[in-house]
């Protein structure tokens, strides 16, 4: 079946450092979404990327969609303790409107 690989699985950073998580697909994607799940919580939608090469920003978060629409990244600048959680990408393939979730990157912050 279609799979989207997400790396790294875990990331520990000092508060104030940057953080990046990546999602890769072997097949061209229709679009990709990003979700955040706080510890003990439920996934919450962050953003959707649709266009090739698209870049969107939300405050300290920068989301990118690759030119070939096979990969995406989420970059957080100057992490804060409120950024703690697991970040998931969710890919949508052409001809299959269901979302395929990545395995997630768990971010922990060292104060």
């Amino acid at each position, binding site marked *: *079946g279609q799979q989207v690989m*997400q790396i790294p*699985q875990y990331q520990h950073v000092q508060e104030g450092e940057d953080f990046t998580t990546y999602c890769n697909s072997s097949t061209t994607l229709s*679009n990709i*979404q990003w979700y955040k799940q706080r510890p003990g*919580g*439920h*996934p*919450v*939608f962050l953003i*959707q990327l649709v266009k090739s090469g698209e870049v969107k920003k939300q405050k300290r978060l920068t989301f990118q969609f690759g030119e070939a629409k096979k990969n995406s990244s989420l970059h957080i600048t100057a992490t804060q303790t409120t950024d703690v959680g697991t970040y*998931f990408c*969710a890919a*949508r393939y052409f001809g299959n*409107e*269901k*979302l395929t*979730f*990545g*395995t*997630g990157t768990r971010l922990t912050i060292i104060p």
Partner: protein
Amino acid sequence: DAGITQSPRHKVTETGTPVTLRCHQTENHRYMYWYRQDPGHGLRLIHYSYGVKDTDKGEVSDGYSVSRSKTEDFLLTLESATSSQTSVYFCAISRGNDETQYFGPGTRLLVL
């Protein structure tokens, strides 16, 4: 947060017993989904519904059945629970199948 509730929030059961989880929404969204979340696997789709009495399988549907008799309720049934079905189960809703999904608070199920 979207108006989504799940019940029960926690459940412990024994192998071989039937279990039904309920998802209730107040948003009148057409699409409803059941996912399970396990370490190292992310979220995997079990079943989804695109309208009353309209359901389809996801990638991990074996051992699960669903029903949707009303727009607001989507039930997930484990006919005979197994230890491999120990997981956190999330319900989600969306207006359209290509739109944002809103997740419920989750149900933690332990099958002994």
